[in-house]
């Protein structure tokens, strides 16, 4: 499949001299599920801003569909209508006190006529389960509800790439589940989704491709199953191994399971392994 996003030797230096990104390169195919991992301040958010065209890399290039971003007004507007970003803090994203107005902003900026925009807003509110609180002012919504609106904000522009900056941080379990369902639906629609997160278990289960950052550098890139078994690498990047991997490795070490088995993706799979082992013993 075609490469949709390609970041080539990107560096970014803030005005105060901090180098937030150091020579980052990677490319992603259409429909791939990508997770960015890294401790706080490792450059994930800066990279997102670069990928949306808010920040211009000091060196290097970002390509969308094989074409570099054109840093003029028209080019940027076009780029941003294709690459949407859901910010970590909804209060920094929602500018209107009315949910309806808020969601209509992006699609109107793309030049859609009002009648069509109205229909689209209603549709997206239905889809993202915003209807029950659509009449409430934004400052009376809960954090999770604000997140739903923030996602609707971006999804309504029907972008081909969506960047989610720590989408489930500070959410309760119910909203975490809800947001993850929305993310899966985006993937089904064929949108290429980038998620930055600290949730290793989620990254391990969900991602096709994982990119690990540390201090603005790309430390590793690969499939979750390949990367997360490398304990030293993961820990050197200020991360921890996913629970399933940790437990599986420990069980293997103690001889309860054998390493010949393929490493499990979910807790469920690991459970099956153990049940299988038990049955073998009782025979």
């Amino acid at each position: 499949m075609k490469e949709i996003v390609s970041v080539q030797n990107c560096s970014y230096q803030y005005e105060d001299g901090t180098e937030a990104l150091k020579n980052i390169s990677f490319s992603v195919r259409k429909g791939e599920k990508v997770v960015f991992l890294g401790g706080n301040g490792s450059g994930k958010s800066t990279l997102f801003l670069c990928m949306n065209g808010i920040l211009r890399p000091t060196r290097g290039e970002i390509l969308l569909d094989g074409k570099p971003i054109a840093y003029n007004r028209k080019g940027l507007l076009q780029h941003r209508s294709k690459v949407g970003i859901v910010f970590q803090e909804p209060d920094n994203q929602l500018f209107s006190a009315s949910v309806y107005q808020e969601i209509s902003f992006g699609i109107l900026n793309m030049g859609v006529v009002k009648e069509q925009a109205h229909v689209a807003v209603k549709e997206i509110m239905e889809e993202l389960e915003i209807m029950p609180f659509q009449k409430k002012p934004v400052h009376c919504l809960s954090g999770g509800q604000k997140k739903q609106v923030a996602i609707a904000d971006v999804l309504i522009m029907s972008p081909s790439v969506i960047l989610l900056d720590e989408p489930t941080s500070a959410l309760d379990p119910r909203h975490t589940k809800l947001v993850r369902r929305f993310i899966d639906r985006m993937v089904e629609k064929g949108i290429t989704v980038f998620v930055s997160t600290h949730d290793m278990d989620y990254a391990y289960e969900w991602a096709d491709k994982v990119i690990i950052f540390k201090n603005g550098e790309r430390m590793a890139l690969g499939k979750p199953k390949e990367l997360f078994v490398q304990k030293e690498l993961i820990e050197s990047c200020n991360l921890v191994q996913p629970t399933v991997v940790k437990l599986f490795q420990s069980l293997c070490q103690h001889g309860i399971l054998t390493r010949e088995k393929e490493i499990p993706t979910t807790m469920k799979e690991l459970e099956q392994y153990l049940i299988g082992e038990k049955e073998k013993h009782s025979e």
Partner: protein
Amino acid sequence: MMDKIAYSSKLREKNPCLKTVFAVGTLLLCIFTRNLLFSSFILIGMGLLLKTYVKTSLHMWIHLIVVPILFVILSTITILINISKEPLSGFAVPIGAIYLTASKEGIKTSCNLAMTAFASISCLYFLSLTTPVIDLLTVLKVIRCPSLIIELILLIYRFIFILANTASSIHTAQKCRLSETNYRTLLSAWSQMLAILFVLALKRSRAVYDAMEARCYDGRINVLLEMPQVSIKEKWMLGGYFGFMILLAIIIGL
């Protein structure tokens, strides 16, 4: 706080323009007639409307009404009472060589004026207790208010709440660390909070700008405004109401 009441009012879903025309029209009638009887009529009418359609506690009512009442009474007194060497026709209280005095005419005018003020306030309360600020923006748009002003109100209105929230959480965090031990610590805590609030506001404004840019912001805030339909029945009711009121005003005026 008033906005919160407006959100829960039964007239919230009605067309904001309709409500504005009703409230402002009544207000204008009130001011033009400047009549005790007419104003009392409106005052009672608005009171009944608010009682039926807006759920508020008595406590809240007193809270809302006490400031304007004080203001009106104080200003009426200053208009009413003259300080003069000659006693006037209404009443006169001698204080040494001078009189605190008022004419009969003056008393009548002041009463009319005070009542008109009360009735006008009730009209505006009706509007603000049934129509949230966001809906008033629609009205501003309809009367072709410059979009710069509308956009400013839109942003300010949202960020007042964020700022207030931030301030209150900082304040709580300070209280937890004994900022209110004495006058000195209290003052220093307040000054530190104000300073950090300013910095935070600046930071947040940048973040919001970035987020708007990310959604193709082009210098104008394009948003859809919600405009509930006005039914024919409502139009007729409004027309009938004003016809009746104008008639009443003419009769009372004569």
